[in-house]
């Protein structure tokens, strides 16, 4: 069983996303620990990319702040190695294909395995292109996470059948960012997915409030939140850890009630 499954073993999962190095790596370390201590079941660590085409303005800003601060893939590997001395929740990297390709897929994924990263999410790597990195992911025991979108329709079954770790269900059209309401018929998407896979389904994009998180967790196995956390980081900067901790606690409580 992949380590990611353990994130879903204690009821509905809450999955926060944090861009590494925003505003600096010390803050990222503190925020990751605060999230883990306050009930995060799995943590998505963003490796910043210069041109994150799937992100809205909030996470774009985090990417640019982190890069401006001099963060690199190697420094993030060192951060995770250090975090893994005490942080045990499953960790996945979220980044863009070129970050992995440029580093060398085998080199990148063997580093993931060595430092204890359990999965990889690449929003610009659809089903048709996953062979680019899948062999290296498999060889190193890292789950390559698949995404389905509101427009996937006839593709959901195909994607779900081969998905690993958990299935990332994109709640809405467009890029990441908080939304006042989510209109997609997610229950239908989850139903089709579950007919073709045993792995958990988590919903992300647009979720910010405990009510939204609870509603999403009610139809799926977990909720993923990025922009709302990045906003806390943008607001509180180096002092963000306790605020993110409190927010994660409120969100975990909400999904647990789902």
């Amino acid at each position: 069983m992949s380590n990611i499954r353990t994130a879903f073993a204690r009821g509905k999962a809450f999955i926060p996303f944090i861009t590494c190095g925003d505003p600096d790596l010390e803050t990222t370390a503190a925020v990751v620990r605060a999230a883990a201590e306050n009930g995060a079941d799995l943590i998505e660590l963003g490796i910043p990319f210069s041109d994150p085409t799937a992100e809205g303005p909030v996470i774009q800003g985090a990417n640019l702040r982190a890069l401006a601060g001099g963060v690199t893939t190697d420094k993030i590997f060192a951060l995770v190695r250090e975090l893994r001395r005490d942080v045990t929740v499953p960790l996945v990297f979220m980044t863009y294909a070129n970050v992995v390709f440029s580093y060398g897929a085998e080199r990148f994924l063997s580093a993931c395995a060595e430092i204890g990263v359990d999965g990889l999410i690449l929003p610009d790597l659809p089903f048709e292109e996953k062979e680019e990195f899948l062999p290296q992911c498999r060889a190193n025991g890292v789950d390559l996470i698949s995404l389905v979108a509101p427009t996937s329709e006839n593709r959901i079954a195909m994607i779900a059948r081969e998905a690993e770790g958990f299935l990332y269900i994109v709640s809405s059209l467009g890029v990441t960012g908080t939304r006042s309401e989510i209109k997609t018929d997610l229950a239908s998407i989850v139903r089709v997915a579950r007919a073709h896979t045993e792995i958990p389904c988590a919903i992300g994009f647009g979720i910010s409030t405990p009510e939204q998180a609870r509603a999403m967790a009610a139809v799926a196995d977990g909720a993923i939140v990025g922009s709302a956390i990045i906003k806390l980081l943008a607001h509180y900067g180096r002092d963000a850890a306790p605020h993110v901790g409190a927010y994660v606690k409120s969100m975990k409580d909400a999904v647990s009630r789902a």
Partner: protein
Amino acid sequence: MTKIKLCGLTRRRDIEAANRLAPEYVGFVFAPKSRRYVAPERAAELKGLLSPGVAAVGVFVNEPPENVAALLRRGVIDLAQLHGNEDGDYIARLRALTDKPIIQAFRVRGARDAAAAEASAADHILLDSGAGSGAAFDWGLLDGLQRRRGGGAAFPLRRGRELRHRDRRRQGRGKNGGVCMRREKEDGSMTNQKGRFGVHGGQYIPETLMNAVIELEAAYERCKDDPSFNAELETLLNEYAGRPSRLYFAEKMTRELGGARIYLKREDLNHTGAHKINNVLGQALLAKRMGKTRLIAETGAGQHGVATATAAALMGMECVVFMGEEDTRRQALNVYRMRLLGAEVVPVKTGTATLKDAVSEAMREWTSRIDDTHYCLGSVMGPHPFPTIVRDFQAVISREIKAQLREKEGRLPDAVIACVGGGSNAIGSFYHFIGEKSVRLIGCEAAGRGVDTFETAATMAVGRVGIFHGMKSYFCQDEFGQIAPVYSISAGLDYPGVGPEHAWLRDIGRAEYVPVTDEEAVCAFEYLARTEGIIPAIESAHAVACARRLAPEMAKEQIVVVTISGRGDKDCAAVARYRGEDLHE
């Protein structure tokens, strides 16, 4: 660029592994004494199983040239590699029998061996410490070695971390595995698979857009051979856009430069003032047939934005154009033209606020509104099928050049020169000549302040392979894959990547890509205005600059075609600023 060759393949499962790993080359050993010997019939069978993107090299030891040429002719192998005592005479005899690339192998034990290799008449040399033992020799012996004709040299690779993955797949082969690392380009025989140009291309986009590009591909497949679609497009191109564009003999320029005869392909005379309209009319018609009512587009110099706004106005569609904020300042006139045509222009403030950011923002917009919206991509880039669709719509340029030159000169040109940002006017100018090996194809990249500075956009000169904006191709990037900020005086060439078909044409050595600086482009801009009374777009001026370098070195009976992709009115203020003069219109 580094290329990989897996050598000594003998079994079906070797080929299967090679197809998975997709090296640039595989090798069949035809030396009977080798324990990796494979009979020609068996090799033919294996070649049939090999992915078309991988070229096969035949390895020979003192084989009669007729036998080598026969295997090349039958397509069992694509290149010949000579490992015996073949001398200059032998290579000349083989050369007379085939035009396929010849590689000669040398054992390098001292500087003299390196010098002998240097003098080889073969297209490429292979340097080895032994007969493919896999051991590395002292690379220091190669210092000062200058290979002529840009031919490549191959070195056995030290088994390092990078190759561990490949090694694992080659179980039990021991150290005679003979994995060779190649440098430089050579004539491969990559096939244009669906959506792939060699290793380049593909569809690296969010899942949200996958059904949209699949739908687009299906619609394009239906329309491209549909007579009514083609008739409608042709009427628009001829009656509305003013095609065919002129192929003008630049007599004065020819005389002044004193070399090849220079023809200018006048895409600047098209309606809206550039080649962009060719593609836009095609895509707008396609979008209409798909039931879309709204066009979105990115634009750099504003020419593609103006063309899209024009087509939208003509066809009664809504239009939103994304343009880097920096470019809206550089190309204020075009912003006004787009608004005049009824389009909304959205200034993009993120990143470097130039073309790449406009593309990113248009892609983001498309993921949020797909149902009624077609993304009218302006260059031969982005995810499949865009590079193919845009190329096909721009191929009208080379189709016309070929016919017009046949009429005027009764023959093919010796060289075709065009500027390359994403590369749409260049691929349009090259396309019908790709199969005509006598025609040199030259793409001119924007070097900005020089390829040795950070202020450049010459992707082929300074970039490496990466994945961005939906495609695998060459990109300007840092060591961690962060896309580099690029710079050129020309907003239309100011892009950190290049279309995948160009990347492939470069890989196989079919097209050449040369950098041209701001200074050279501005001088060419002024030169063409003065000499022929034609003010070219600053983008096109990069091609003119290259022609000025090249034509004097060519014979008087040779012919060069330069594509003037657009007209330069939009650039007058920027060029004046470059010369220290502030224009207020």
